[in-house]
């Protein structure tokens, strides 16, 4: 299958939102990092713990071992536009504050159970927020389409609601994990050189997905 068809199909599957892949369609603002838009070693440690809570170590490695914290900072720095960068940076603090509120101390001091309880609640919040956002985006897309159909009208400047920071973190965790060496080699059946194609291959519950080099 051509890559272009694959991207189209992913769009069909997910209704236009490629999980962990919104950078594929992100618009360009400024590549310069504004104030408060850089990451420290502590930030990476913090993001590692967030990622580990989303994807903990089981029979396969956890997100921390797959260096997902580091990955998140690279993607936010280089691939996110300014609006997404701001949402992410602000979000780290919001997450820590929410932990303070729920458990009486910051995320780094929280127990694994406390961390999970917090992130489960944030996941629910982010999903609710996501519904509102997709409604908003739909309306904006329609407005843009209608106005831009008229060649004489000024081009419509589409508004975009911020992405929820936890949606960003969750998407980056999933993508970062499954595209990492450690994650792919322990959580999937990594087949870099299958050598053949079998279109009718037996499967039983519990068998892992096949992944490739790419």
């Amino acid at each position, binding site marked *: *299958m*051509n890559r*272009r*068809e694959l*991207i*189209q*199909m*992913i*769009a*069909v*599957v*997910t209704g236009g939102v*490629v*999980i962990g*892949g919104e*950078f*594929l369609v*992100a*618009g*360009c*603002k*400024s*590549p310069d990092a504004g104030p408060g838009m850089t990451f420290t070693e502590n930030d990476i440690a913090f993001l590692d713990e967030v990622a580990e809570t*989303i*994807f*903990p170590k*089981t029979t*396969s490695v956890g997100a921390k071992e797959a260096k997902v914290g580091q*990955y998140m900072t690279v993607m936010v720095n*280089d*691939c996110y*536009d300014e609006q997404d960068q701001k949402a992410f940076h602000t979000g780290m603090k919001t997450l820590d504050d929410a932990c303070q509120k729920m458990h009486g101390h910051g995320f780094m001091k929280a127990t694994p159970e406390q961390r999970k309880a917090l*992130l489960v609640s944030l*996941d629910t919040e982010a999903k609710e927020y996501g519904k509102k956002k997709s409604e908003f985006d739909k309306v904006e897309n329609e407005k843009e389409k209608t106005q831009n159909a008229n060649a004489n009208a000024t081009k419509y400047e589409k508004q975009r609601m911020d992405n929820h920071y936890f949606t960003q973190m969750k998407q980056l965790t999933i*993508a970062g994990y*499954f595209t*990492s060496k450690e994650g*792919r080699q322990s*959580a*999937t059946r990594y*087949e*870099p*050189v*299958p050598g*053949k*194609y*079998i*279109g*009718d*291959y*037996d*499967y039983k*519950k519990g*068998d*892992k*997905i*096949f992944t*490739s*080099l*790419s």
Partner: protein
Amino acid sequence: MADNNTFDAIVVGSGISGGWAAKELTQRGLKTIMLERGGELVHIKDYEKSNRPVWEYPHRGGRTQQMIEDYPKLKRDYPLNERNLHYWASDKDCPYTETKRFDWFRGYHMGGRSLMWGRQSYRWCEEDFLANEKEGIATPWPINYNDIKDWYTHVEKFAGIQGSYENLAVLPDSHFLPAMDLNIVEKDVAARIKAHYKNQRTLIIGRTAHVTAPIPESPERNKCQYRDMCWNGCPYGAYFSTQSSTLPAAMKTGLLTVRPDAIVKEVIYDKETKKAKGVRIVDALTNEVKEYYAKVVFLCASAFNSTWVLMNSATDIWPDGLGSSSGELGHNAMDHHFRVGAGGEIEGYEDKYYFGHRPTGFYIPRFRNFAGDKRDYIRGFGYQGAASRNGWGREVKELSIGAELKDALSEPGDWRIGATAFGEMLPYHDNTIKLNKDVKDKWGLPVLDMNVEIKDNEKKMRVDMKEDLKEMFEAAGVKNVNTFESDYAPGMGIHEMGTARMGRDAKNSVLNGNNQVWDCKNVFVTDGACMTSASCVNPSLTYMALTARAAAFAVDELKKGNL
């Protein structure tokens, strides 16, 4: 003139068409030089990313904001990515202008887009060559299916096309290598479509230029390993490219010289003999202007660039360039319009999966306006798609975070099926490209301005492209079928065609039935520029066949003293 500048034949461009021209001309005994505007790119050695796993890319293959800024046009679609960015021409060095939006995705390096192509390979059918004449569209083709049939076989035997024998009038069989398999869901959907439409519609394996069994004429190539890495260049030589196929064959003759970094700026036309003497180039690295001389010139620089060379040639005689006397040079630009289709869910098959990463999907050949069908538009479309199990990127609504989510995403999800339609675009006289002398590229050469759009016929067709697939999928038992239609701009198909069309009459076409420029018989144009109409199938196989046919003709004419 210096000896090392003089050849029997010059081939401009090293992509699919240029590679074929070089192979056929040298194998028929002509001392040939192949000029490529981009840099050298050596088979296997320069496929530096062909074994690189995703985690070794800093952004895991994605695109950065810096890339988006550097490639304002490439960013419009999938070619802007971290994996094979170096295979796509730079928007900054090689700009073009747009009276109407046109997405022009080019490969300026040895091998051109033969390295990045989709590899889908289909013959045209008889109807494709007849339609213009029957319907009074544009101008009739000067050749028919029978003129090219044996040339299809000739190129297929060497290029290696895997596919299944189907005996369909709308999609003639090629000389095939063993077909790749449809997966179990695709097979069942195919059977249901066939039964529901009483054999009038079919779903078959997508035919591609991949080696699935040894090719005696091309022993260097190895079988496809199903790695899902085609776009980086294949170290096994499993898919057809200039590097894997035509270039080694041409080099073996000892008659080919390859000259990268040579931007051909014009054909040198001799008023006395009314023939081309050769070509003038700009060295892309030194800006030095140099001339090469030959008895025949093959323009295979990619559709719009071959026309660009003609537009810049012999302007003292024809202000609009060599081949412009008919008024058709630069007109009738085409692409395939697509980005419309449908997808849905497949119930069951939980105990089935597939092994290996197949480099093709399924194909549903055209059924509209064919064999008695009649719509409120003319021509037709085909579909390309696949059925697969959802991967780790899927949404699992019922799960939040934690071990459950991680374990769930480590297993395949439900089956889905989806496809995209590729539709024929008519050749409209006012869909044009022209020189824009106000804008210059890195070498001070004028750029192209694009003025191409889809019109009513294509817009009507797009309704069927969407709705027909929904109906077919539903008839085949697919659940929750969604249709989609994304923005399409001409060029996105990366199937540029036309602008120097073939025809029967010098008054309304640029090339004759042997791809010779009417106004200058020793110049041949055999890439997408020559197309008189577009069909709805992927065009590359037809360029291969037309090029091989024209090369054989050119050598015969040379021998007869006619050129």
